[in-house]
């Protein structure tokens, strides 16, 4: 490596600074144009989620019955829907909900899945058998069906949607974490951690998980796109957020009757979903390459 090492001075001695993992990752990611494009779109979506309400030309929930089904024009960029609401404003406003549900659901399933997978993989034996059989049972039910069942049991609402969508993907994370832990825990450095007196919890969190984090992060990034799709699916079925709140899937669901007479009521929320999912997928793929040490130069 010809790069100059950064140094710091401690107690009069020059000590090399650790090479930042994130910087190495960034260097690799920068070379992947598709992933970079994905990242830019994600940042753009995040920007819209935060400032969307300020940018929206109309109140997304205001219904102007005098202007229903207006085709896209200078005044209403994306047209208006069956209740005369500005679709552009609603798509902007929906960004916030889709991203929030996506991130929260993934965080929810990631945390629970990681804990369950770590316990199963590290301790093995009966604990492993019990946890993984439960996960298998969850996996045997089609995920959207399970989410709908959970929504039916929990009731409607954004927070319930997050829990339902999050719960559905717990088994996936548990499995990934478990298998990664199984491959890492046989390493001598885990034995070494035990020999110097680490507790089991510390071994898992300090010695094993940091070494499997890359596969989890990649899966989580890709998982956000799945969660956004699931949110849209629940919304489409009328089980997600409550009207008149704007949500992409819900917009699709309510406008599907007008697919031939007013296709623009579906095209724009549909494009938004596609764009968000594509962005997270591209970025996730790039992240996987960037975190794989074999891909590094």
């Amino acid at each position, binding site marked *: 490596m010809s790069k100059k090492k950064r140094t710091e001075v401690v107690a009069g*001695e020059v000590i090399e600074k650790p090479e930042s993992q994130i910087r190495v990752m960034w260097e690799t990611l920068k070379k992947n144009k598709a992933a970079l494009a994905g990242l830019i779109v994600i940042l753009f979506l995040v920007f819209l989620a935060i400032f969307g309400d300020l940018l929206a030309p109309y109140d997304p929930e205001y219904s102007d019955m005098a202007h229903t089904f207006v085709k896209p024009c200078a005044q209403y960029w994306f047209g208006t829907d069956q209740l005369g609401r500005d679709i552009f404003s609603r798509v902007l406003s929906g960004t916030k909900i889709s991203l929030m549900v996506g991130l929260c659901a993934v965080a929810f399933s990631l945390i629970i899945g990681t804990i369950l997978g770590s316990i199963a993989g590290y301790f093995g034996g009966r604990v492993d058998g019990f946890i993984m059989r439960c996960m298998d049972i969850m996996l045997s039910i089609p995920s959207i069906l399970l989410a709908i069942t959970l929504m039916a049991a929990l009731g409607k609402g954004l927070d319930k949607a997050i829990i339902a969508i999050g719960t559905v993907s717990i088994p996936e994370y548990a499995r990934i974490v478990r298998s990664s832990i199984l491959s890492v825990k046989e390493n001598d450095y885990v034995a*070494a951690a035990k020999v110097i007196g680490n507790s089991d919890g510390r071994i898992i969190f300090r010695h094993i998980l940091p070494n499997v984090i890359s596969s989890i992060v990649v899966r989580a990034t890709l998982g956000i796109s799945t969660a956004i799709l699931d949110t849209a699916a629940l919304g489409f079925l009328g089980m997600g957020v409550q009207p008149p709140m704007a949500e992409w899937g819900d917009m699709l669901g309510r406008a599907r009757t007008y697919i031939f007479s007013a296709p623009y009521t579906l095209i724009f929320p549909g494009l938004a979903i596609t764009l968000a999912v594509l962005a997270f997928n591209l970025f996730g793929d790039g992240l996987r390459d960037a975190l794989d040490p074999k891909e590094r130069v």
Partner: protein
Amino acid sequence: MSEDKREVLLEVKNLKKYFTVETSFFGKPTSILKAVDDVSFKIYKGEAFGLVGESGCGKSTIGKMLVDLYKPTSGEIIYNGVDISKLRPQERRKYCKDIQLIFQDPYASLNPRMTIGDIIAEPIRINHLLPENQIEDRVTYLLNCVGLANHQRNRYPHEFSGGQRQRVGIARALAVQPKLIVCDEPVSALDVSIQAQVLNLLDDLKDQFGLTYLFIAHGLNVVKHISDRVGVMYLGKLMEVAGKHEIYDNPLNPYTQALLSAIPSTDITKKKERIILTGDVPTPINPPKGCRFSSRCFKKCAGCDDILPELKNIGNDHQVACHLYDENPQ
């Protein structure tokens, strides 16, 4: 040096470790691998006890039992008068400060996500040996002891060579100020030129820190350099234990004789008779009934196939498990 004056630091009594290879449908073991089968020895304070034997003879398993990576099937591990093998996990953990392990593979034994400074500081931190503000200095001191430069402390293990990594492993073991260090083939993964350096380092540290070593190796030549006494293992059994010079000059067990004859010599004037053993090592799942070495022994006599020889003292601090020799406690 008479035996009575030496202080026993660690004694292993009738230690056994069986692994279950296969179980029946109901979880009853049907096939058992006897990795360590009834081994007893003593390690005196301040000495380096070498344990040699070929792959799979159970020497590393003994080392791992001493540091609590494996639980013994039966037998006792008596450290400073306390049987540590029967302690509850909480109590047992207190002894990890006293007995440390140096691993065979320096590439696998260091966490790739931690800087070497953190790796060495961790045992001090989790055992609360020093206040936080003194750890930095201690790590600097340990790095110097093992011949690494302080400015490298923020580097990751992959930036080091095998020999340097092994030095980090040694520093980590030293960090808790142990009394006994189990060296599990610490040089076998290194280049020959580096082997000598690391062996010399271990030798120096032994005097500097007043350490006792259990030195596990698969060749007698490495052990010769560092050990005071040597135990030879074969198929989970201890075949011979003696002082270094005694075992090299007067090997009694035929297996030891065969092992010694395999060491290449640089002395061309000395013509050596190379003993070539026939056959393979029997599987430890189904070892020979009598003496474990009977299937390959070139001095086999009538009872060897059926009667298991006990390890007996034949004088001059020399123990051997072989029917050819009689007990002679002097």
